[in-house]
């Protein structure tokens, strides 16, 4: 298995889906089954490779980048093909291959209109490469390429397979289809952010000596104080914009409810479960180690925005009438907890952020699956028209209730640890950060959990409970089918397992985070 550890293993994880995408493209459009089988094969292969990566990973030394390789790539700008995983990225890599596989399984029998599974599979596989690649990249240019690679497939997914209901924008005369507005908004927002991010990367390159895009080398220079002063401040700001749009942080979040709501089911799942994490991961992997001084300066602002997101996102959820949009908005609040954890710049807080990311991935991913399957059956997402779902589809309703409980942070399920520990970290943030500010953030964040419980229970009441509405009388609904069950059961188990035994994640993250915090902040 020597070859696996020398970078080939991770390369397989990342590029198998891309190979699969080309393979599927070569299959005639009419031969759907072969396209599906091919797609499934490559997604599964990538997942298996990531599982092997877990087995080959040395958990005694999580702070070191393992299974790595560093090859010359674009020598003119000394950008290398440098990949590797440590304890922080490993869970996220596995999360991305895991969710991709489940999305593929779910898709087997659920194709959004206008059908065309072949193209859809190609896009999913390209997305998979982009997502996994972002988590293993250790070179800024490589990171940027992967980071951007996810943009186009998602744009097409939303724009072509998205929601066709016409919508009217306030202040505009013409009506547009929701999918078009959402797709463009998603695309431009992210492009806007990543443009600044690229700007920051380039600035780091020119300031570094010798010029490099290598994250590890840059981190060392960062620790040595090469990027301080107003230069560092602005570079952090530029990176902040790139990552914050993706997270998304308030007030850069407004693309999210539209994109999630308009996207086809699988699109929403991938978007929520993995793509949002690219942003928060960027903070942990790039901003904090390379610009530790600036991170201290920006931390209070990030904490404030995070807390606003928690409260604002939750309140916005309470106002929603569309089930999917409610779930979409819930991400704003949940990612607020992740960002609050990061802002504490502590061991506890960053661990909280990583487990929060993983938990949000499995929980919200499942919620979007459920919302998708339900709207597929009811042909509506309006909660006022739903109700009594528990009677019409008991299994679906049960899973929805379970997942909603996980989402509101019920202790014993996955969502709890990220929330609780983000608050825990805020009580004692990194030395030098304002105690008053972070402790206030802790209290407000804790109040946010009440609002979260409020909208989740209210959603459950409106969707699941009560007698079914008259319009569904006499209608037969097909409860959870076997592909749905195959895609969801692993998520349910993951939610339970991480909740009961959080070591599943912390065993990987703890050492790596500790090392990161110690070297960057001396904490």
């Amino acid at each position, binding site marked *: 298995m020597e070859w696996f550890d020398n970078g080939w293993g991770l390369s397989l994880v990342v590029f198998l889906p891309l190979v699969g995408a080309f393979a599927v493209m070569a299959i005639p459009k009419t031969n759907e089954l072969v396209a599906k089988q091919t797609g499934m094969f490559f997604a599964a292969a990538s997942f298996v490779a990531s599982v092997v990566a877990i087995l080959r990973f040395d958990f005694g030394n999580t702070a070191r980048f393992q299974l790595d390789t560093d090859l010359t790539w674009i020598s003119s700008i000394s950008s290398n093909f440098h990949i590797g995983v440590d304890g922080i990225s490993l869970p996220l890599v596995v999360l991305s291959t895991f969710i991709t596989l489940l999305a593929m399984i779910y898709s087997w029998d659920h194709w959004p209109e206008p059908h065309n599974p072949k193209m859809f599979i190609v896009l999913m596989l390209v997305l998979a490469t982009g997502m996994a690649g972002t988590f293993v990249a250790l070179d800024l240019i490589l990171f940027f390429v992967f980071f951007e690679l996810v943009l186009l497939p998602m*744009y097409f997914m939303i*724009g*072509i397979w998205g929601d066709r209901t016409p919508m009217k924008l*306030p*202040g505009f005369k013409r009506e547009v289809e929701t999918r*078009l507005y959402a*797709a*463009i*908004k998603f695309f*431009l*927002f992210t*492009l806007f952010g990543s*443009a*600044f991010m*690229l*700007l920051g990367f*380039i*600035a780091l390159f*020119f300031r570094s000596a010798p010029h490099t895009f290598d994250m590890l080398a840059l981190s060392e220079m960062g620790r040595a104080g090469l990027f301080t002063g107003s230069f560092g401040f602005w570079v952090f700001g530029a990176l902040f914009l790139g990552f914050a749009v993706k997270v998304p942080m308030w007030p850069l979040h*407004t693309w999210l*409810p539209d994109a999630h709501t308009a996207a086809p089911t699988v699109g929403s799942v991938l978007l929520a479960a993995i793509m949002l994490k690219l942003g928060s991961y960027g903070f942990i992997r790039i901003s904090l180690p390379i610009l530790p001084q600036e991170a201290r300066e920006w931390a209070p602002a990030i904490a404030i925005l995070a807390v606003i997101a928690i409260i*604002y996102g939750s*309140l*916005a*959820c*309470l*106002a*929603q009438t569309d089930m999917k949009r409610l779930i979409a908005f819930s991400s704003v609040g949940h990612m607020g907890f992740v960002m609050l954890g990061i802002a504490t710049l502590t*061991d*506890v807080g960053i661990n909280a952020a990583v487990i929060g990311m993983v938990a949000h991935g499995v929980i919200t991913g499942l919620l979007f699956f459920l919302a998708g399957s339900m709207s597929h059956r009811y042909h509506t997402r309006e909660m006022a028209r739903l109700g*009594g779902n*528990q009677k019409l589809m008991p299994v679906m309703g049960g899973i929805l209730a379970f997942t909603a*409980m996980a989402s509101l942070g*019920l*202790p014993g399920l996955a969502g*709890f640890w990220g929330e*609780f*520990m983000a*608050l*825990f970290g805020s*009580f*004692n943030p990194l030395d030098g950060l304002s105690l008053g500010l972070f402790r206030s953030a*802790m*209290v407000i964040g*804790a109040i946010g*959990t*009440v609002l979260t*419980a*409020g909208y989740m*229970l*209210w959603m459950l*009441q409106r969707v699941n*409970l*009560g*007698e079914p509405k008259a319009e569904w009388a006499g209608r037969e609904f097909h409860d959870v089918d076997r592909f749905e069950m195959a895609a969801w059961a692993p998520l349910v188990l993951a939610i339970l397992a991480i909740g009961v*035994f*959080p*070591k599943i994640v*912390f065993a990987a993250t*703890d050492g790596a985070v500790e090392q990161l915090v110690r070297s960057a902040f001396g904490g």
Partner: protein
Amino acid sequence: MLAALGLFAAEEGEHAALTLSDGGVLAEWAWLIVVVPLVAAFAIIFFGKQMKNKGWELAVGALGFVGLYGVALFIANMGDGISFSDQIEIARIGDFAIEWGWVVDGLSITLYALVGVVGTAVFIYAKGYMEGEIRYTFFFGAFTFFAGSMLVLVSSPNLLQLIVGWEGVGLASYLLIGHYWEEKENSDAAIKAFMTNKIADVGLVIGVIIMGATVGSFRFGDVLEAAVTGDSALEEVAFWGGLALFIGAMGKSAQFPFHVWLPDAMAGPTPVSSLMHAATMVTAGVYLVGRMFPFYEDMGSDVRTIIIAVGVITLFSMGLIAMVQDDVKKVLAYSTLSQLGYMTAAMGAGAYTAAMFHLFTHAFFKGLLFLCAGSMIHAVHSNNMSDMGGLRRFMPTTYKTWLIGSLALAGIVPLSGFFSKDEILASLSHEGQTVALVIALAGAFITAFYMTRATALSFFGEFKGHGEPHESPSVMTRPLVGLAALAAVAGFANVPGLFTGFTDWVTSRAIPIVEHHAESFNFGLAGIGLAVGIAGIAAGWALYSRDEATQTARDRLEVPVLYPVLRNKYYMDDIYHHGLVRPIRDTAAAFVNWTNTYIIDGVVNGAALVSKFLAGIVYGGFDQHGIDFGINVAGAAAGEAGTALSYSQSGKVQQYAAALFVGVVLLVAGFIIFT
């Protein structure tokens, strides 16, 4: 079994004080008390429907196991006293260990036995009560999970596991209260219970964080150790930490002003109310204060002033409401609130034993009374006492057991409530809490009064309902008899001056409890307490026993001002609804949504319009005049990309992209040049 798998780090008896035993094998395997009900709960939900009794057998088996194990531990604890705890690490973050574990000491054993014994009685009863009800199997699954979560909470050797059990109980109560969720009223009640508890849990979570972060460990052992050894860091945050934890306790134990969820929780099936009001859930808050008692005794003593005030307010104000209820379950619900007030006040006064003793006896007689109420409701198909009357002739067993429960609750010698209530009164007197003592005595009068009223209205006079009520089947009456026996004699577990068994049992803990109220029996106070109780009964009887009275005016207390205030529960539901729920759920949420659509997105869409406009100028400029090569390239590249997208009919995306890229290229150039 798990130990064999090597999952447990052997740390047994780590905190055991010298004089206490480690409980041996019995304590080592006590984790089964927690695991068995939880496993049973899931087994019932997934496989119950295929079983002969539809899962009930698993439920009652699990609770029976807990009961037997609990009683065995209880008896073992009577000897040396046990203090044992063990845990497995489920995660480690830097220096913080996150652990699952179980603690076996006087306090937890008392609760194990209570949950097991009362639970078993209630579960047997529930078989009869729930016969033919909708979602029978799921009910028993959730009910078993309810007990299991309580045991997670009680068995916890650390604050984090406590939170897990705590909210597990909350979830189970949500499922059970909302059992008949076809009616919105019931799911509203379920949500109300969950949300009220969740609000109080903000306190709990913050308290746990303060304690854990300051001490550097979540273990009760370490926190209490720090508290009794005068750790200066903990000293600094002791007041806020202690207060925050107590706010959490107020939620679960339904203390004023968090009490509003408990009366509404009556929406659930009656067996749920019985267990919830007796051994499970509402006792959690008192238990938490008890668990943290060495802390509150020492560093957190400032908080105790607040604890006693909250307790006294609750015991008095909620007792008053019980006097004007027509729904028999609501009488009992407000009675529970009032009795929890007694326990809280006792904890606040520093009377750990008295509070735990009242919790102990109350579990029997209140569990019993709710089961009696269920039996009555089952017979007359109504919760209202105005549909009852004269039931003593139709339901002799229910009547007799109800009478025992009522007299115990009213504090009549020699039933259990007399001893435990007297001990609280004696402790209040001993601690010099005169105001609290007077209010507690007034509360005792009120208690006796409303129970007499309820007894007279439902069991005496003429039957006012429809049809012919009948006694419940033996599966329901036997648990009544069993609980009645316990309610009658449990008081003898602690008779100050004669036999102080309970005091010793409940104080066998790793960190010794300092409080000692083993002073001799206070005959004077006991006499006053008894006299007050008898006076309450007499007053209630005088007002409600006469036939014409029971038939005509149900409420003889229709005093202007006071009566409407009590009937409307001090208007607190309205205050919360109009002052808290609606402003947040309707106004603030709508406002946030509005800002999202019109302000933030307004900026976004506005920026898009401006970009489109600028892009138009750039396009026009380059098309007609070919001004700038850089812009040319950028625009063309973006235009190409845009063409590829064009079948999505967006039309404008390439223009936005062009504008953006132009901007970025300029910025990058500028940045490189100027730095």
